[in-house]
């Protein structure tokens, strides 16, 4: 074949192949979207991710491996100042794998933070993990239910619970951050929308929708952040496992808001004590019933509901709301074949709880809730029956003392101790007038 003709032939074959490959493109993009392999169009991702994805090509995995090894080595040697950058690079090399973001954020917030004795240093690392997830992980995986659950978990567990020695500091810093963003306890005035989007990567319309349904919410507290992320994740959940755990997180955060969602601030203007918001009870009961109806065969959902009904019945009884307690208890009895329905069953539950729970075995939240309940009941009887009021106050004081004396050492006290009894009492008196109830 003459060379000229040969050249034309190759050109035509090349063009045909190019057109054929180009024709596949739309289908591949659609399929990637359908399989959730790449939901962010390349033009919406960060320049670094675009660059590394293209520039390293097939070597991306090798570079990621080298960075993983370097990060592990540095962490073992206690050289942390590079780790935030390395975590970001590693995740950006595998941007659409949520597990990578999850691991890196967890490593920063959990593993590294605890190595610093200073609470402010710890908070910085917890915040690094949160920022990595919400500012970058969710940017590249906006539909990942796992990452949304992880965001909620960081607020619920790392900041909200008392496992970390510096958890009080985390709570204060979160409250300060939120006040800065919202200009108060929650969205108020104008301009908060941009700040919420920028700092917390929160969607203002969802914030307003939650406010409308459950408000007024105190966004300075961890449970409200947990509610936000679980609610947002739930709308994206695809697998039954993710849906259940996000639903559980959402209900737990709502229950926490019901138990302590009405904050009393200290003299610095930050949350100090939370009073119950029992007006949320009907909503919560309906949500639990809904969850049961939607998933009738799930033992996990039944267990969660049982535990919620039993706990809520106890709390209502503690606050002297006997009728509500009985109603909630009957729902519990419906799910537990061993529990007899009616007042006798409720009494048995309360008695069993009193016998099994010594003050020293209570969690910090349980102890604070009981002290608060007793003091509020005392406040209610102050004008009508001072002797009864004194008795209730004495019980509260005794419970406080027993709980505090069971703290083992100063670190345990710092982590799980209650505020001074007089301060709790003073705050409650400032909020609730004598003779009245919640």
């Amino acid at each position, binding site marked *: 074949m003459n060379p000229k003709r040969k050249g034309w032939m190759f050109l035509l074959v090349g063009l045909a192949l190019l057109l054929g490959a180009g024709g596949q493109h739309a289908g591949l993009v659609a399929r990637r979207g359908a399989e959730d392999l790449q939901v962010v169009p390349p033009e919406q991702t960060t320049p670094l991710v675009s660059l590394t994805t293209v520039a390293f090509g097939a070597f991306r995995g090798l570079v990621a491996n080298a960075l993983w090894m370097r990060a592990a080595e540095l962490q*073992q040697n*206690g050289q*942390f*100042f*590079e780790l935030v950058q390395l975590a970001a690079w590693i995740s950006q090399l595998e941007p659409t794998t949520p597990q990578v973001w999850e691991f890196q954020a967890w490593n920063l917030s959990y593993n590294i933070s*605890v*190595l610093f*004795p200073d609470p402010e240093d710890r908070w*910085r*690392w917890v915040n690094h993990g949160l920022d990595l997830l919400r500012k970058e992980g969710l940017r590249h995986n906006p539909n990942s239910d796992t990452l949304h659950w992880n965001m909620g978990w960081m607020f619920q567990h790392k900041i909200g619970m008392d496992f970390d020695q510096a958890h009080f500091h985390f709570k204060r810093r979160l409250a300060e951050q939120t006040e800065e963003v919202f200009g108060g306890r929650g969205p108020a005035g104008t301009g908060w929308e941009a700040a919420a989007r920028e700092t917390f990567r929160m969607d203002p319309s969802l914030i307003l929708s939650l406010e409308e349904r459950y408000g007024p919410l105190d966004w300075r507290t961890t449970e409200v952040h947990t509610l936000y992320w679980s609610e947002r994740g739930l709308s994206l959940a695809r697998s039954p496992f993710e849906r259940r755990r996000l639903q559980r997180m959402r209900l737990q955060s709502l229950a926490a808001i019901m138990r302590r969602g009405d904050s009393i601030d200290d003299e610095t203007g930050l949350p100090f004590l939370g009073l119950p918001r029992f007006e949320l009870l009907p909503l919560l009961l309906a949500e639990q019933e809904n969850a049961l109806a939607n998933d009738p065969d799930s033992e996990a959902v039944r267990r969660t509901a049982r535990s919620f009904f039993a706990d809520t019945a106890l709390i209502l009884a503690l606050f002297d709301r006997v009728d509500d307690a009985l109603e909630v208890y009957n729902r519990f009895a419906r799910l537990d074949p061993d529990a007899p329905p009616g007042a006798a069953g409720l009494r048995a539950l309360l008695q069993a709880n009193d016998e099994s729970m010594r003050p020293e075995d209570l969690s910090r939240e349980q102890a604070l809730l009981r002290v608060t309940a007793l003091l509020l009941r005392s406040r209610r009887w102050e004008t009508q029956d001072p002797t009864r009021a004194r008795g209730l106050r004495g019980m509260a004081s005794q419970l406080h003392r027993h709980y505090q004396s069971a703290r083992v050492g100063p670190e345990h006290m710092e982590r799980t101790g209650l505020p001074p009894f007089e301060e709790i009492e003073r705050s409650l008196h400032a909020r609730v007038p004598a003779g009245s109830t919640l």
Partner: protein
Amino acid sequence: MKAFAAIYTLTLRAALRERVVWSMLALTGLVLLLLPPVLRGDGTFAGEIRMHIHYTLGFCSVLLAAMTLWMSCGTLATDLGSKRLQMVLTKPVSRAVLWWGKWAAVSTLTTVVLLLCGIVTHLHVSHRVASAELSEAEREQIFSSTLTARRPERPVPFDVTEMVAEMMRAHEEAGLLPPDIPRDVIERELRNHALTMLNAASAGDSVRWAFRLSSPLREGEGLQLAYRFDGASMGITRIPGEWRVGRDGEEPAYTHRVHQSPSGEFVLEINEGGRFTGARDLFVEFHNLSEERDMVFFPMHEGVALYRPGGAFAPNLLRALLLLAGLMSLLAALGVSSGGLFSLPVACYVTAVTLLLQLFSGSVEQTLELGTTLTGVTEPGRALQTVDRVSMAMYRGVHAVLKPLDVASPLGRASRGVSVSSGELASTLFLRMTPVLLVISLVGVLLFQRREAGVAE
């Protein structure tokens, strides 16, 4: 000399005509300008400054290494391929002069660009520190722990020879020596065990190190105690303890209680008020105050050091960069030699593989320490044992060549404010790198002389 100068100039000009070289230089410029603003430290200003120095210059070094590799391999290989070399060889220029001229040109270009990168980074960092809103204490901390050059003094090594011999004897008498494990492997393990125990303290006990400083402490000279725990052995338990430092044979003049997580490097200023002025022999002791029977471990090597002022940051950075430039010159020598022997792609491949081996010299050393490549294989067959013997011989060869080039992270040290001393620089450049350079050049020139430059086609 005239011929050398001519080759040198021609090579420089040819390099500056290369698009690859200009691309690498442009990328280096971009790294200097664009990388620092996007780098994220641990949130502290000191961390950001360290990242700035280490990563910016680290990235520039990688780009310059790539540029050196390309230029050095190409300088002879391209001339050979394009037959330009035939023209040069018709002149009275020996092949050795040709080799050295090309090497010198490539090395000069790399060194100059590397030093320029250092100057830009230094100016940028100085500007950032000057314009940052820092408290007096923070500023002082930056200048005492990052933008400085602290000279480390290491403790007198523990002599465990007798201890190991005693343990060997005891094990032998008790019949505890496994017959299938070579004696030297058992001895090494016992030695490590002894060192671990000498660097550890159980509750109520102390671990003590002796220091013989290189010169007595001068009036007003600062002294820092830097230490890190062995986090891998201790987990995250915070153990209370007390640091005690004193002159040899005297009571401790400095005590300081700590209660820290065993991770990260900690630094204490211990010579406030000049309490150790004039001292040369010091002891440093950590007393474990745990009431929970927790043991405290320090790494066997470099767990504890005393830092003395070792000069300013800028000269230290310069020394670190000169060490890197030395390594680049060796890379250039290897590239020029390969280029004289192979075609451009093969030369680049050979040089790049050698560079990779150098980067992974830590793994090679680790394997040699283990004494086998078959860790985890319980019963290796004859074939595997043969492979192991051949591999170990190869590793030993590679290690012998690479050991002189093993420079302990000069940029890492400069960014942490640890000194790269003039002595270290001189001994590394002249006693370790120069012999390797001479060997590479000798081999390169010999092979190049045997290469037929004018093959008829």
